C-alpha cells in the first residue's frame, strides 16, 4: 500500500502554460494525515484540486498520485486516481437533472459499478446524520446551499475513498451543518481510514484537527506553525 498519496515537486500550476497561478508547488500528502490549505480567492486553490484530479496539467515539475507519475496521464490512470479520491467541489455542484439520491449514487453506480441495493445500504448511515431522509427524491434546484454541501459531502465519502478533498467545505453552511461536517471529520480521524485535504478561504477554528497547515501564495505553499 502506497503511503504517499500525493506528491508535488516544484510543480507549476495554472490554467495556461504561460500564465502560472502557482510557480513552485511542493506538497506531500501522506496516508492518514489531515491537511488544510488556506488562501485568498483566485490564488489557485481550485486549480490545485483540478490538477490533483487530472483536469489540469502541471506545466513543469513532477506530480505523483498514489505512486503513479501524472505527467501526461492515460485515461485508465486518470480513472484509477479519480476513483481513489472523494471530492466535494467548491459550491458543492450537483447535477441538476438528477435527484439527490441519484447524485449521491453517481460515483458508485457509474464509477465503481456498485448495484443499487448496495448503494442504498451504504447511504443508510448518512441519512439521519445529515438530515437527508426527506430530500432523496428532490432535485438540486429545490435545495439551499447548506443542503447542497451536505449532499456533496456524502457523495464524496460514500465510496470510502483513500483521500477526501474538500474545496471550501464550510462556505454557505449553517452552524448545524458545520457541526455535522466536523462530527464526520472527527469520526474519520478516529478511524484513520481516510486522508483529508481541505482547501479554504477562511482560517479554521479547529486547528488541532490538522497535522499540517499551509498558506497558499502565488510562489507556493508556506507551512503555518
Amino acid at each position: 500500500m502506497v503511503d504517499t498519496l500525493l506528491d508535488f515537486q516544484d510543480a507549476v500550476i495554472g490554467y495556461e502554460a504561460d500564465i502560472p497561478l502557482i510557480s513552485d508547488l511542493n506538497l506531500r500528502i501522506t496516508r492518514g494525515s489531515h491537511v488544510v490549505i488556506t488562501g485568498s480567492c483566485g490564488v489557485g486553490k481550485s486549480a490545485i484540486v483540478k490538477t490533483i484530479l487530472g483536469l489540469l496539467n502541471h506545466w513543469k515539475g513532477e506530480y505523483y498520485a498514489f505512486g503513479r507519475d501524472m505527467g501526461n496521464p492515460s485515461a485508465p490512470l486518470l480513472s484509477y486516481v479519480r476513483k481513489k479520491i472523494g471530492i466535494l467541489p467548491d459550491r458543492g455542484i450537483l447535477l441538476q437533472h438528477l435527484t439527490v439520491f441519484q447524485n449521491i449514487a453517481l460515483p458508485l453506480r457509474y464509477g465503481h459499478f456498485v448495484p443499487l441495493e448496495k448503494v442504498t445500504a451504504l447511504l443508510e448511515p448518512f441519512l439521519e446524520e445529515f438530515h437527508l431522509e426527506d430530500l432523496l427524491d428532490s432535485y438540486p434546484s429545490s435545495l439551499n446551499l447548506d443542503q447542497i454541501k451536505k449532499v456533496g459531502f456524502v457523495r464524496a465519502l460514500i465510496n470510502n475513498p483513500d483521500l477526501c478533498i474538500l474545496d471550501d467545505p464550510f462556505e454557505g453552511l449553517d452552524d448545524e451543518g458545520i457541526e455535522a461536517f466536523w462530527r464526520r471529520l472527527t469520526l474519520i480521524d478516529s478511524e484513520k481510514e481516510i486522508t483529508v485535504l481541505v482547501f479554504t478561504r477562511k482560517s479554521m477554528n479547529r486547528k488541532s484537527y490538522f497535522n499540517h497547515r499551509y498558506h497558499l501564495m502565488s510562489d507556493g505553499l508556506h507551512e503555518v506553525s
Partner: protein
Amino acid sequence: MNSFLLPIVAAGLAALPIISIVALLVGAGIVAETGIELPKLGIQNLMGAIVLHVIFGIVGPFATALIVTARSTSGLAVEIGNMRVNGELDTIEMLGVNLSNFLVTPRLVGIVISNIALTFYFGLIAMAGGFAMALMGLSMPIATLVRMIETSIKLSDLVLPFLEGLGYGLIISSVSVYHGLRVKNSPVDVPRETTLSLVSSLSLCTVMLSLYLIFSSLA
C-alpha cells in the same frame, strides 16, 4: 431501457403532435399533386410507387430530421453547455465517472432511436393524410390507392427510411453534443454554440439529402 436513456427518448417522442400535423399535411399534398399530375402524363399506374418513394424515402426522413433538429439540437446543446458553465461536466469527471458513457452515449443513442421511430411514424401519418386527400379531394376510392401501394411496396421502402433516420439521427445528435461540449466556462458561449449547432445540423442534413438523391438516381 437505461433509466438515463428513457427521458431522452421520451423527449423525442414528445414531438409526436407537431410531427402528426406536418405529416398529415405533407402526405395530403403529395397525393394531391401526384393524383392530379400523373394522369396528365399517362403514368397514373406509378402513383403508388411514387407516393411511397417520396413519403418514405425522401420527404419523410428529411422533414422528421428538420423537426427533430429544431426541437432537440438546441435543447441538447443548451443542456450540455449549461452543464459546462455550472461546473457539472468537470464534477462528473472528478468523480471518476466516464463522461462519454454517462452523458454523451445515452444522448446519442436516445436521439437516434427517437429519430428512427419518428421517421416511420411520419411516413404512416403522411400515408393517412394521403388517403384522406384521395378520398375527399380527388374522389379516388381508397381501395384503389391501397391496391396501388400494395403492388408497389418493396423491402427497400422500409430499409431506406431506417437508414436515413439513422443517418440524420447521428448527424443531429453528434452535432448537438459536439457544440454543447465546445462551450467553455462563459455563459455567453451557450447561445453562440446553440445557434452554430442548429445551423450545422440543418446544413449537414441537407448535404446528406442531396448526396442521397444524387447517388440513388445514379444507382
